[in-house]
C-alpha cells in the first residue's frame, strides 16, 4: 500500500511538473530565507546569554525625578559601588567597570587598545575563561594585567605573553604591568568587549584617586550579582535608606525645582537591569525599556515569507485537486477510507516539503557567507545552534508541513464519492479560503513595499538634512597617538598653515557623527543657576571651532584669540539659552561647582551634535585649548578634498609615525550613525522583493489553473463575441479585486507601523499617502503583469479547441 502511495505520489508530482517546480522553487527559497533571517534574529537575540550567572547579574542604574520628567543615569560615582555593597543587603558580588581607550607600548610597538578597569569580583561574576595563566580566574591587582588572546597576538605575536611586561598610557599617565593571564577571545554575542583588564584603581588620578570620595563625579558603570533568592524588586526596595543617605541634597534640589516624586514618594531610585537585557536597553523614557524590535521584526519578515510560500502551496494544491476528482471517486468506490485518502495526499505534500527543506537548507548554507557580508553581521549557524533552537526549527517544519500539507489533503479526502466521480464538484471556484489567503499574501507584500519606501525616505532625509554645520568640507581626525593633544594640534597647525588645501584647523573633545575609531561619548553636567538646576551637554573646543564648522551665531561673538577673559567664556546653543530663562542670554554668568564664573559670549544656532534620532539638546561650549581633545577638525578647500586627505595623512605620519591615521569626512561620520537603519532597510527591501516574487509565483500558478478551469467559458464567450481584451479583463478582474482589498487592509496598518517607527526619530519625514499608493500600485501592476502572462494567451486561443472537448 505504502509503495503504491509513494509511486502514485511521484507520478503525480512528475505529471504536474510546472506545479511541482513552482512549489519546490517557492518553498525552498522561502525556507532558505527563513533560516538565514532566523539565524540573524536569533543571533541578535542571544547577546550575553553565555554568562553562567546571567540569572543573577544586573547593571545598576538610577532614575531621577526631574522637573522635565523622569531621567535615567547609568554612570555611577567611585564611592557608590563599595557603599552599595556594604550598606544594602543582597549583594553577593559587585564590580565597577570603566572602558577606556589606552595606548599600549611594548618594545617599539605602540597600539591603541581598549582597557576595562574593573574590581576583583569581575571575573567570578562574568564568564570569560582563562586559557593561559596560573589561576582558574584571572586575579585583579595593582601590578598585573589580563589580556585577551587577540590582544596578546597583536602585542607579542607568536611569543608567549605570560609574565611579560607592557606599558599602558591612560589619560597621560604611564604605568607598567605584568601579564598574568590570557583570556579567551569574547564570543561574538558579548556586549562587553575589551583588550586588557586592569584593576579599577589603576586609572589616572583624575578619574579615580582625586574623586575617591566624591559622589557627584559619575564616570563608570556598576554591575552586581545578587545573592541567591534575592529578587531585583526586593533589592531595589532595600536601597531606599542608601539613597536617602547619599543623595539627600540632590533629592532636595529636585523637590525644590518642582519635580514630582515617583509612586513611592522618592525623587531618586536605584534600579537593576538584568545584564542579559543590557544590549537591548533604552533609557530614553527613564526606566529602562528592553527593545528587541529589530530582531523580532527580522524574524517576522522571515515568517511572513514562509507564510506566503505556504499559502502558495495550499492554494495550488486545492486548485489542482479538481483534476484528481475522478481518482478520488474511483478510490472511494474501491473502498478507500477517508483516513487512507488523507494520508495519501498528505504524503505527497510531505514529499514536496521534505525536498524543499533539503534544498532550502543547502541554499541557506551556501548563501550564509554572502548574507553575512551583505548585512555585516557576525551571526553564524555555529553561534546559535543550540539544542533548543534546532528542536524549534524541526518542530516548526513539522507544524508547517502538517498545516500546509494537511489542509488540502483533508479537503480532498472528505469529498463525497459520487460527486467526485462525476467530476462535477466545483470545489475550486468560489474558494473563500483561497481568496482570504491571497488577500493576506498581497497585504504582506504591500506592507513590506511601503515599509521599504518609508525606510529609504527616512534614511535619505537624514543623509541630506542640513545639520547646522559643514559636513562636506570638514575632516575629523582622532588624536590617538603618543604625543599630548595640544602638542599635536600645534604641530598640525604649523605644518598645514601655508597649504592651500587646508583652510582651518581646530579641535574638540567630542566627535560629530561616528568616526572611524568607532567611539562615541556624551558629557553632561548640571549646575545651579538662579536657584534652579540646569542640565546641559558640554563640549570642550579649541579656537576657531565654530568657524571651522561654519556654525551660525544668532547672537554675540565667537571665541577670540587675545581676549584673556575668554578662558572663562562659553558659547551656548539656542536650546540652552531658552533653558536659562534670561532676557538677554549674553549677559548671563553662571557659576560652576569649581566656583568659577563663566560668561556667555555668544549663542550658537542649534545644530545636531548628537545622533539624528534625538532632538537637539542644550549645549554649552567651553574654550579649553589644553584639554584632552581627542579629535582635530580640519576644514579643507572645496574641490581639493582628496588631495587634502592625502596631505593630512602624510602630515599625521610625520607627527605620529606609530599611530593609525583615522581621519574621515564628517558626512561619512554621519552616514555611519545610521548603519543600523541601513541594515534594516536592506533586509526589509530584500524581504519585500522576495515576498513579491513568491506572491507572483503563487498568483501565476493560480492563474494557470483558473484559466484551465474556465477554458470552456472562455471559448463560449469568444464565440458569442468577446474580444481578447474582454476576456483578459474578465480573468484579471477577480485577482485585482483581491489586491484592492489587501491594499485597503495593509495601507492603514502600514501607516500606523511607519508612524510609530518614525516617532523614534526627532527628525523625521512626514508620512504622505503617496508612499502607500505607490506601494499599492506597484503590487497591482506586478500582479497584473503576472496574470497577463497566462490570461492573454488564453484569451487569444481559438475557441474551437476548448469547445471541441465536450
Amino acid at each position: 500500500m505504502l509503495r503504491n502511495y509513494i509511486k502514485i505520489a511521484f507520478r503525480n508530482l512528475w505529471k504536474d511538473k510546472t506545479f511541482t517546480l513552482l512549489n519546490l522553487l517557492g518553498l525552498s527559497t522561502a525556507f532558505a530565507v527563513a533560516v538565514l533571517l532566523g539565524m540573524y534574529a536569533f543571533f541578535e537575540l542571544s547577546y550575553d546569554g553565555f554568562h553562567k550567572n546571567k540569572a543573577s547579574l544586573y547593571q545598576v542604574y538610577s532614575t531621577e525625578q526631574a522637573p522635565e520628567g523622569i531621567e535615567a543615569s547609568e554612570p555611577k560615582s567611585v564611592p557608590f559601588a563599595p557603599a552599595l555593597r556594604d550598606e544594602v543587603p543582597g549583594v553577593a558580588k559587585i564590580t565597577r567597570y570603566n572602558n577606556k581607550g589606552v595606548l599600549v607600548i611594548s618594545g617599539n610597538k605602540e597600539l591603541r587598545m581598549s582597557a576595562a578597569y574593573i574590581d576583583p569580583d569581575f571575573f567570578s561574576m562574568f564568564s570569560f575563561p582563562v586559557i593561559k595563566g596560573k589561576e582558574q580566574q584571572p586575579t585583579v591587582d595593582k601590578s598585573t594585567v589580563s589580556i585577551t588572546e587577540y590582544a596578546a597576538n597583536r602585542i607579542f605575536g607568536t611569543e608567549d605573553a605570560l609574565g611579560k611586561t607592557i606599558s599602558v598610557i591612560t589619560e597621560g599617565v604611564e604605568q607598567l604591568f605584568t601579564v598574568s593571564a590570557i583570556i579567551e577571545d569574547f564570543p561574538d554575542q558579548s556586549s562587553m568587549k575589551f583588550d586588557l583588564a586592569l584593576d579599577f584603581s589603576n586609572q589616572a588620578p583624575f578619574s579615580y584617586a582625586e574623586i575617591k570620595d566624591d559622589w557627584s563625579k559619575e564616570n563608570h558603570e556598576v554591575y552586581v550579582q545578587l545573592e541567591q533568592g534575592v529578587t531585583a524588586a526586593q533589592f531595589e526596595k532595600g536601597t531606599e535608606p542608601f539613597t536617602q543617605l547619599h543623595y539627600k541634597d540632590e533629592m532636595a534640589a529636585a523637590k525644590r525645582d518642582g519635580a514630582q516624586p515617583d509612586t513611592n514618594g522618592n525623587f531618586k531610585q536605584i534600579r537593576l537591569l538584568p545584564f542579559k537585557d543590557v544590549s537591548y536597553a533604552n533609557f530614553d523614557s527613564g526606566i529602562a525599556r528592553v527593545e528587541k524590535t529589530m530582531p523580532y521584526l527580522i524574524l517576522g519578515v522571515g515568517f511572513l515569507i514562509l507564510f506566503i510560500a505556504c499559502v502558495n502551496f495550499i492554494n495550488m494544491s486545492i486548485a489542482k485537486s479538481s483534476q484528481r476528482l475522478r481518482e478520488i471517486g474511483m478510490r472511494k468506490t474501491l473502498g478507500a477510507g477517508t483516513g487512507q485518502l488523507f494520508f495519501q495526499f498528505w504524503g505527497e505534500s510531505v514529499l514536496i516539503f521534505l525536498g524543499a527543506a533539503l534544498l532550502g537548507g543547502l541554499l541557506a548554507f551556501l548563501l550564509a557567507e554572502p548574507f553575512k557580508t551583505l548585512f555585516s553581521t557576525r551571526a553564524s549557524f555555529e553561534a546559535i545552534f543550540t539544542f533548543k533552537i534546532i528542536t524549534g526549527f524541526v518542530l516548526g517544519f513539522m507544524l508547517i508541513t502538517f498545516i500546509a500539507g494537511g489542509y488540502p489533503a483533508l479537503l480532498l479526502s472528505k469529498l463525497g464519492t459520487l460527486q467526485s466521480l462525476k467530476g462535477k464538484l466545483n470545489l475550486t471556484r468560489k474558494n473563500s479560503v483561497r481568496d482570504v489567503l491571497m488577500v493576506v499574501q498581497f497585504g504582506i507584500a504591500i506592507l513590506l513595499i511601503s515599509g521599504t519606501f518609508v525606510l529609504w525616505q527616512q534614511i535619505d532625509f537624514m543623509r541630506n538634512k542640513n545639520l547646522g554645520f559643514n559636513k562636506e568640507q570638514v575632516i575629523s581626525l582622532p588624536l590617538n597617538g603618543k604625543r599630548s593633544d595640544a602638542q599635536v594640534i600645534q604641530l598640525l597647525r604649523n605644518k598645514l598653515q601655508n597649504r592651500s588645501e587646508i583652510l582651518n584647523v581646530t579641535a574638540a573633545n567630542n566627535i560629530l557623527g561616528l568616526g572611524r575609531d568607532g567611539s562615541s561619548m556624551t558629557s553632561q553636567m548640571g549646575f545651579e543657576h538662579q536657584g534652579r538646576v540646569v542640565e546641559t551637554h558640554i563640549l570642550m573646543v579649541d579656537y576657531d571651532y565654530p568657524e571651522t564648522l561654519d556654525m551660525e551665531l544668532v547672537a554675540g561673538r565667537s571665541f577670540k584669540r587675545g581676549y584673556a577673559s575668554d578662558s572663562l567664556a562659553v558659547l551656548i546653543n539656542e536650546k540652552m539659552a531658552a533653558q536659562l530663562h534670561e532676557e538677554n542670554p549674553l549677559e548671563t554668568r553662571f557659576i560652576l561647582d569649581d566656583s568659577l564664573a563663566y560668561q556667555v559670549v555668544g549663542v550658537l544656532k542649534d545644530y545636531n551634535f548628537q545622533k539624528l534620532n534625538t532632538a537637539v539638546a542644550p549645549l554649552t561650549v567651553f574654550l579649553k585649548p589644553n584639554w584632552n581633545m581627542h579629535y582635530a577638525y580640519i576644514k579643507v578647500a572645496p574641490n581639493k578634498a582628496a588631495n587634502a586627505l592625502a596631505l593630512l595623512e602624510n602630515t599625521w605620519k610625520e607627527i605620529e609615525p606609530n599611530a593609525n591615521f583615522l581621519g574621515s569626512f564628517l558626512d561619512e561620520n554621519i552616514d555611519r550613525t545610521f548603519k543600523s537603519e541601513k541594515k534594516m532597510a536592506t533586509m526589509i527591501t530584500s524581504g519585500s522583493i522576495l515576498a513579491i516574487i513568491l506572491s507572483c509565483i503563487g498568483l501565476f500558478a493560480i492563474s494557470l489553473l483558473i484559466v484551465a478551469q474556465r477554458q470552456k467559458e472562455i471559448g463560449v464567450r469568444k464565440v458569442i463575441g468577446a474580444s481578447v481584451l474582454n476576456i483578459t479583463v474578465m480573468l484579471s478582474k477577480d485577482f485585482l479585486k483581491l489586491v484592492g482589498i489587501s491594499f485597503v487592509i495593509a495601507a492603514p496598518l502600514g501607516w500606523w507601523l511607519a508612524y510609530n517607527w518614525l516617532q523614534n526619530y526627532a527628525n523625521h519625514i512626514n508620512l504622505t499617502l503617496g508612499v502607500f499608493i505607490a506601494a499599492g500600485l506597484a503590487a497591482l501592476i506586478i500582479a497584473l503583469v503576472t496574470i497577463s502572462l497566462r490570461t492573454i494567451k488564453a484569451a487569444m486561443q481559438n475557441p474551437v479547441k476548448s469547445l471541441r472537448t465536450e
Partner: protein
Amino acid sequence: MLLQLNHIYKWVKQGGKRVFLLNDISLQVKEGEFISIMGPSGSGKSTLLNVIGMLDEFQEGEYDFLDESVHTLKEKHRSKLYKEYIGFVFQAYHLIDELTVYENIETPLLYKNIKSAERKALVADMLDRFNIVGKKDLFPAQLSGGQQQLVGIARALIAKPKLILADEPTGNLNSKQGEEIMRLFKELNQEGVTIIQATHSESNAEYGNRIINLLDGSKVKA
C-alpha cells in the same frame, strides 16, 4: 448571396500523412435558406460549421461572406464580421454556468457595447418570445436540457444575426424537446434568418430546404 465556399481543403498531419477533414468542399448559401448537413460521426460536419463560422482555419480554398473574402481577412476583422452576422447554437448548449438565464442572453450585447436601456429591452423581448420570462433568474443547472437549448438559441438570436449555425442542436434532447426546437428553427427561418444545421437525424434534416451529405470530409451526391 450570403456566403460562398470554393474548393475548401482542410487537413491535419498524422504520422507525416495528410488526413483530410474537409476535402474539396464548395458550397453556396443564399439568404433565407435552411440547410441541413448530414453524415456520420467524424464526417466533417462540425468542422465545416466551424469553418463557415470563421472559428476554424482552412489550408486551401476561398471563402466569401457577404462579398468579403474571409481567407484574406485579418483575425480582428474576421471576428468583427462573425460577431455582427453569425450566431452559434451548440449540442452541449455551452451556457455559462455562473450566469443566470438573463445574463447569459445579455452577454453578446455587452460585447457589442450596446447601452444598458437598449440591452434591457432586447433581452426582455427575447425572454418574452421564448416564454422564459419566469426563468430569467435561474442558473443553467436549474433548467432542463430543452430549456437550456432555448436559452442557447435566444442567446444566438439576441444580436440579430443573418446566419445561425447549429451543431447538433437536438443531440442532447429527447424527441419531444427536439421537435420543439426544430419547429422554432423553422419559424425563425420563415422570418428570414438563414440557418445551417449539422445533424444525425433524417427527420430533423427534413426541416431544412436543402440537405448536404458529408462522408470523410467530402460532399456526397445524394
